[in-house]
Structures are given as structure tokens and as C-alpha cells.
């Protein structure tokens, strides 16, 4: 049967009539459109796909992704503006509607049509072609319109900085004036890649452009969902299971009802929500709730400190049923044959996202119950929408998600649990509701980077070269643990990667760089140990492994050169080196550390890092992301640990869940980016995974001792130094 929709959807046209709106005919979008003041002006207005040009020259570009600090809100608009030759000073950036068919991207690039999730450092590479193409189409429409109006051939026209110019007529016209043309209808063709701008002609891509969101982030005007206030709004808090899976029974409802400001309670499987007239009354009511929690959940039996010995037994078991991640050659057999082999176990604790804005959302349902508005900072726009639609039982077309800035995401905001909670409460009490997670809620009901134990085994041939590699990962959280275990840039003759996941009933989730944070630690720390034992330069051992990957080798050599690797370090300091790939980007890094043998504190003094991420759309922002990733990496290596006892999270706030602070940051963060015309790859996480392994390498060089358990807390350092 003929698929009419797909046939129509291939045809795109634009109509110029009091402004230019680029329509996609296959998907007529009807959405309520609101002005900034929150006043509904037009109920049914066609929404353009990527860009609108007003008669006053304003170019509105729609941003499909979450803005959580990674800066892609600006970078994506740059892609459109670049190809259409817009005047950047006239560009306004707004969140796009939530419709993955139009605004989604494909995993790993292509022309979109897939997910709207903002995860995995995917924004630039996922939209790079799609948005440049949209910009090229917009430019074509502008040229075509002028060519018809002025009756000149299209190739007589050129574009620059918001104007179209005719050589023949020697005059130019602004985009705003073109938008004022009447009744011109133009079919938009596909623009072949070879007609897009050449890199040497870029005016915005690869250049310095100030981030669009920064001015309102320094004057207090940036709106996060926690900032939304509505008339008649109430405040909701939830007391959630201290042990995951425990079900609540509220035992003092009558007492709560007597309390000032009580509005209602809302029961969930995982907790009890309480709603109050004021925020302070909400805090008080939350503390007052008396809840009996059911016993018998899986998590109750889990104590994280004890789980490692369980993992060791799994690693020891010759008959274990592993999930195979990668299997080249026969690592077990080769290891048995080689004389020169190494084995070591590496551990990592659970880690918490610790984004600065605790989870929250605001929901408001219309008086007749047929429509709803939800304000949320989310990495999963479509997920938030579906969650709200289901929780409220309101048709998707009547549920509007207002996307706000995210006070950090790092993976946690790709879940929609807090959206579900907010909508369930607002749906029950029928008043605008702000749900606030306290910091303690956010931490204790966190979804953590998995804990794991990694057993690494390696074999060297007679020439002392690394030949065989076996990497066994045991922990909780399934595939979250294994990202980054593969090492395509290192050549081993035999390489086996295998995983065993144990369910402890603990919530786990993607965390900045996901499993790379732990797998790259183990890999790089192990290589540094082998080099140390073999009395080889850890740079050289990696060079040899990178013999078939010139791009990675180039990155490694660059960082060695930049850091003057091998030079004499000051007394009491040592350097470590490591390499990692994440989201397609390659990073080599060197750190210089000292260790206080009395306090057990490791201090990172200097960092050198080199990044190869292909074409970099926004170099200064890429630098900022790299700085941030390195800080995050140091933080995870030295500080961050969630411990669980009988299912209960033991930490509660920033005083006992430590993250890196200002006095801990290195004096020098020297970052270099390799410029190339390779396809862009992800930058938001790339510089995190190499850090812990490099610190371990420096520690080994300095002390002769091996740090194999992240974080390298004072206590662990003292224990290792005393061993």
C-alpha cells in the first residue's frame, strides 16, 4: 500500500507572507503559542521547523536540545546561521516544540528524525548535518525569492551577514525586507552537501561566538523550573523509600491534617507526597510525616562495602557465565601460554550526579481538566511529555511542556521520575504545584553510576610487548558499566571483554561519561602499572599499542610534547599519563601531583590535555567543556563516593558527599585542541575518563604504591601508603 504521509513529507515548501516560516508539509504542527509574558495570543499557529525570519529582520532559530551548561543551544543555532549567512546579532534562540519526527536526531549523526534525548555528548554530531542543511535550505529560499522578485538569475546573487546582493543590479536587500515580500511560494529542494559552505568560508563555525545563555546567567534572569511561580501555587515534597523498593504506609494523617498549611497527601509506591500552602509549611509537614516502610526488598540485603568480595568470587569462578562484550582471539588460552602476565583488580564506588539544581518541576492543569502546562528542566523532552500525558490522562496535544534551563543534568535529568511525581500530585489536588526535591532527597533517591570491580589480566610476549588483554567487569547496572571497556585505538592480538551484572535492587543511571569513568580508570591504571614494573616509559608502551591508530597516536604525542613529558618534575611531585576515547573524541592527558603522606591528600597541581574532536563548532565552549570534564574527572578520582548499608544510602548532602572545590583545582589547566576537518564528535564528557588512571600512574611513580580503588580518599591513600 502506498504510504501517503512519507510521500508528502518529502515535499517541503515555504510561503512568504509577512515573515518567512519554513514549513514541513507532511507534519502540520498545531500548537498553542505563548508570548514571553505567558499570555496566549493565538491558539493555532503554524510552527516552523528550524527557523523563522520576521519582517524586522529577526531570525528565530529553534533549539531542539536541553541546555544544561554544555552550550549546544548556541552551537546548534550557529550551524543554521552559518549556512544561511544570517546576521548573528539578529538571531534569537528558542526551544523547539517537542516532536522527535521533526526535531529528533539520529544516533551518531545523519539527518535526524530520531530521539530528542540530550545525552552522550550527541547534540553537535547528531545535528551537524541536519542543521547545516536546514540553514542551506533557508539560504536557498532567500536567494530564490530575490531572484524572482528582481528577475535576475539565482547565480547572480550572493549572501552575507543577513543580506542578499545582486552583482548585476549592484544592490542588496536584507533578510527582513525579503520576509516582507508578498505571496511568493517556493518549493524547497534538497541541497547537496557539495553546495554547502566550505570550511574555509566559515564565519561562525570554529570561531569565537559568545554563548547566548550567558548574559541571563549572570544577572539572575535565567529561568530554571524551580524558579517558576504561578498564582495559587502550592508546594509539594515527597518522603521517598530510604531503601529502594520499600513501600510506605502513612501512620499520622490526622496529625498532618491539623498542621498549618496542609493541603493534601498523595500516595506513591515509593513514598508519600505532602502538599502545603507555603514552602516552609511543606518542609515542616515533610519532617512530620510518620511512615512505616515495608520490609523484604532486594536492596535491603545490599551493603556496598561488602559487595566487592562477592564480585571477587565471581571473578575467581572459572565456570562463570559471562556476557561477552568483545572477543578477539583467545585471551584465556594465550594468557595460560605466556610466562609474563599481570593481574589486578580495580574498584569504583557508586557516584552521585550532584547537579546543583535539585530535581523539581511545576505543573498546572486547566480548571476544566482538559489541558496542562508543565515546566521542567529535562534531558528527555519527549520522555517528559509522554510521562506527563500518562500521569495526567490528558491528550498529548493539550499537554505543553515548557522547557527550562537545567541546573545541571549529567544523566540524571534523562529520567522523568520527578515529572511523573509532579503531575500525579497536580492531577490529584487540581492546583498549580511546585514539587521540590530537597538536596537530601536528590542524593538519597539518586540513581548512581554503578559500583564495580574490574579484573584485568594482561600478557606480554618475549619482546616485552603487550599482547593479550582480558577485562572482566563485575558489578551492578548492566551495560552502564561496560561503556569504554573497548579500546579500538590499542592493538592487542587477543582481547576479551566480559561482564557480569548483579542486581542489588539499587537504582543506577548514566553519569557524565557513563562507564568510561570506571573502565578507562582500570585500563589506564593497569597499563601504567605494567609499564612501571617493566621499567618502560608509560608513554612508549601506549605508543606501541597505538601502532595501528595514527589519529590516537598523534593526540598522545601532542600531549607528551606539550607537557614536556619526561622532563624533571619538582621535588615531591610526579607525573602520570593516560589516554581515553569518549563519544568519538580522543583525549590524551598528563597530570602532575603531590601526596601529603600525613593527611593522605592527593593534590593535582597541573594538567595538560589534548583533544581531537574533529570539527569544533564552538572552540571556546569546547574548551570550557574540557575544563569542566577534567574537574569532574579529578572530583570523581579523589572525592566522590556513595556508600550503601543494608540498602540505605549513607551520605545525605554536600558535607559528606564531597565534590571538588575551588582550592582543589589545579593551578594549570593546559588544553589544546587539534583542528581538523573530521566529522565532529562529542566534547561534553570526553576529557573526564582519562583522569583517574593518570593520577594513579603519577601516584605509583611518586610512591611506588598502587591506587586501585576510586575515589582515592585520604583514608585509602593512607592505607595504601602504610601497606
Amino acid at each position, binding site marked *: 500500500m502506498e504510504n501517503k504521509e512519507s510521500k508528502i513529507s518529502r515535499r517541503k515548501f515555504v510561503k512568504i507572507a509577512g515573515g518567512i516560516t519554513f514549513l514541513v508539509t507532511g507534519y502540520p504542527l498545531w500548537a498553542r503559542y505563548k508570548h514571553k509574558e505567558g499570555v496566549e495570543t493565538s491558539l493555532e499557529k503554524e510552527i516552523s521547523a528550524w527557523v523563522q525570519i520576521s519582517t524586522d529582520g529577526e531570525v528565530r532559530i529553534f533549539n531542539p536540545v536541553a541546555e544544561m551548561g554544555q552550550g549546544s543551544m548556541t552551537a546548534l543555532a550557529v550551524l543554521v546561521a552559518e549556512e544561511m549567512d544570517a546576521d548573528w546579532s539578529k538571531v534569537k534562540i528558542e526551544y523547539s516544540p517537542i516532536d522527535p519526527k521533526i526535531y529528533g536526531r539520529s544516533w551518531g549523526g545523519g539527518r535526524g528524525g530520531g530521539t530528542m534525548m540530550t545525552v552522550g555528548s550527541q547534540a553537535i554530531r547528531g545535528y551537524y548535518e541536519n542543521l547545516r542543511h536546514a540553514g542551506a535550505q533557508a539560504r536557498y529560499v532567500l536567494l530564490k525569492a530575490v531572484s524572482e522578485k528582481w528577475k535576475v538569475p539565482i547565480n547572480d546573487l550572493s549572501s552575507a551577514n543577513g543580506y542578499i546582493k545582486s552583482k548585476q543590479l549592484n544592490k542588496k536587500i536584507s533578510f527582513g525586507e525579503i520576509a516582507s515580500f508578498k505571496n511568493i511560494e517556493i518549493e524547497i529542494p534538497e541541497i547537496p552537501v557539495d553546495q554547502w559552505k566550505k570550511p574555509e568560508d566559515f564565519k561562525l563555525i570554529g570561531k569565537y561566538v559568545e554563548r547566548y545563555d*550567558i548574559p541571563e546567567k549572570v544577572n539572575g534572569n535565567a529561568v530554571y523550573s524551580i524558579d517558576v511561580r504561578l498564582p495559587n501555587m502550592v508546594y509539594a515534597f515527597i518522603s521517598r523509600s530510604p531503601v529502594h523498593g520499600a513501600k510506605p504506609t502513612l501512620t499520622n494523617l490526622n496529625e498532618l491534617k491539623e498542621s498549618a498549611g496542609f493541603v493534601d497527601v498523595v500516595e506513591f509506591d515509593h513514598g508519600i507526597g505532602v502538599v502545603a500552602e507555603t514552602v516552609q509549611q511543606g518542609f515542616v509537614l515533610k519532617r512530620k510525616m510518620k511512615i512505616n516502610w515495608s520490609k523484604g526488598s532486594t536492596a535491603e540485603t545490599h551493603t556496598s562495602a561488602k559487595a566487592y568480595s562477592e564480585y571477587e568470587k565471581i571473578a575467581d569462578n572459572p565456570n562463570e557465565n559471562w556476557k561477552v562484550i568483545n572477543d578477539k582471539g583467545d585471551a584465556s588460552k594465550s594468557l595460560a601460554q605466556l610466562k609474563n602476565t599481570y593481574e589486578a583488580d580495580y574498584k569504583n564506588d557508586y557516584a552521585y550526579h550532584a547537579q546543583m539544581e535539585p530535581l523539581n518541576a511545576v505543573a498546572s492543569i486547566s480548571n476544566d481538566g482538559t489541558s496542562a502546562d508543565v515546566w521542567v528542566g529535562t534531558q528527555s523532552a519527549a520522555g517528559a511529555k509522554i510521562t506527563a500525558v500518562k500521569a495526567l490522562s490528558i491528550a498529548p496535544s493539550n499537554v505543553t511542556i515548557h522547557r527550562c534551563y537545567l541546573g545541571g543534568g549529567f544523566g540524571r535529568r534523562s529520567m522523568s521520575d520527578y515529572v511523573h511525581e509532579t503531575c500525579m500530585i497536580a492531577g490529584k489536588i487540581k492546583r498549580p504545584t511546585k514539587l521540590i526535591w530537597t538536596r537530601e532527597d536528590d542524593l538519597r533517591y539518586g540513581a548512581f553510576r554503578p559500583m564495580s570491580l574490574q579484573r584485568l589480566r594482561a600478557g606480554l610476549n618475549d619482546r616485552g610487548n603487550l599482547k593479550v588483554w582480558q577485562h572482566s567487569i563485575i558489578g551492578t547496572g548492566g551495560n552502564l558499566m561496560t561503556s569504554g571497556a573497548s579500546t579500538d585505538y590499542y592493538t592487542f592480538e587477543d582481547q576479551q571483554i566480559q561482564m557480569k551484572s548483579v542486581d542489588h535492587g539499587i537504582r543506577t543511571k548514566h553519569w557524565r561519561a557513563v562507564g568510561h569513568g570506571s573502565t578507562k580508570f582500570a585500563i589506564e591504571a593497569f597499563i601504567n602499572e605494567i609499564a612501571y614494573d617493566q621499567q618502560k616509559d608509560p608513554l612508549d608502551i601506549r605508543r606501541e599499542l597505538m601502532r595501528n591508530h595514527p589519529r590516537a597516536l598523534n593526540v598522545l604525542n601532542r600531549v607528551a610534547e606539550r607537557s614536556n613529558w619526561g622532563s624533571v618534575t619538582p621535588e615531591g611531585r610526579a607525573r602520570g599519563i593516560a589516554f581515553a576515547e569518549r563519544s568519538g573524541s580522543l583525549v590524551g592527558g598528563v597530570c602532575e601531583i603531590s601526596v601529603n603522606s600525613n593527611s593522605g591528600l592527593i593534590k593535582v597541581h597541573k594538567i595538560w590535555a589534548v583533544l581531537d574532536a574533529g570539527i569544533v563548532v564552538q572552540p571556546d565552549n569546547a574548551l570550557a567543556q574540557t575544563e569542566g570534564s577534567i574537574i569532574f574527572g579529578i572530583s570523581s578520582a579523589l572525592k566522590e563516593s556513595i556508600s550503601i548499608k543494608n540498602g540505605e544510602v549513607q551520605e545525605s548532602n554536600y558535607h559528606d558527599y564531597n565534590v571538588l572545590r*575551588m582550592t582543589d583545582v589545579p593551578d594549570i589547566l593546559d588544553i589544546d585542541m587539534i583542528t581538523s576537518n573530521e566529522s565532529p564528535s562529542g566534547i561534553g564528557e570526553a576529557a573526564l575518563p582519562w583522569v583517574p588512571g593518570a593520577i594513579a600512574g603519577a601516584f605509583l611513580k611518586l610512591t611506588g604504591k598502587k591506587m586501585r580503588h576510586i575515589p582515592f580518599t585520604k583514608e585509602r591513600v593512607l592505607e595504601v601508603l602504610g601497606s
Partner: protein
Amino acid sequence: MSTTNFTLNVNSKKYTVDVEPETPLLWVIREYIGLTGTKYGCGLAVCGACTVHLNGKPMRSCVLPVSGAVGSKITTIEGISEDGNHPMQEAWIKEQVPQCGYCQSGQIMQAISLLNKNSDPSREEIKSHMNGIICRCGTYNRIIKAVERVTEENK
């Protein structure tokens, strides 16, 4: 838990609010007065996102009951300049400091309070003064650069 009228001086304007006396100043500023640039991060004075000035000195507003702020001159991020053009804000833009931005009001308020008492701080003094304000995105090195930029410009 009954409510009481409190009159506060915020950004040189008088506001009278009817709230429970234990309500932390943070939530009065945010939810009653509507100045939402000051953020909630921890509620324990350990992250600094809620930092405002009380008579020019930095104060973690998440642990100060509103009753304790009466009679003081309270300044929030919204009150340091008319158009976001305080030298510290301009330096923050020039150095492209914020990422997610959530902690930055607190960072800026803390940084201004440093220069109020020490116009030429060393890097170590900057670090130590700013240590109470967490930035999870890791913008610390840019914050230092921005503060040093303002210090240089003042010379």
C-alpha cells in the same frame, strides 16, 4: 506555626511579607518577593548557591531565618546592577564563565564581597574566599580568571 509580618530591605526596596518566622530568607526572597536569581542548592550552607549580601557581607540565605534579616540591607544578584553591567558580571561574560549557570549568582555575590574587603587579592586568597561555593560544572578556573580580570581593571 503562625505567620508574622516582616519588613525587609532588599535591593534598596522595602517588602513586607507575611510568613512563618522560621522561613529561611532564601525562600522569602524567591517565593514571596519573586527574586529567583538566588538559588537553593543544599539547605545547609555547604554549597553557597544561595549567597546574598547582608550589609555588604556574604550570607548563606538558606540557613538564615527571615526574622534574622530584618533591619539589614539585603542585596541579591538582581540588585548589584541595573542592566547586568556590574564589573563582576561583565568579567563573567568576557571570561564566558557559566555553564549550567545555577551556582553563578552565588559565585558572583561571593566574589564581589571579596573585592569589597580586599581590592587586590592573591590567587590563593581568591581560591580560599570562593571555596564555599560549589560549581558542579567545573567553571572554577574561569571564575578565578574573571575575578583577576576585575582586580586588574581596578588598578
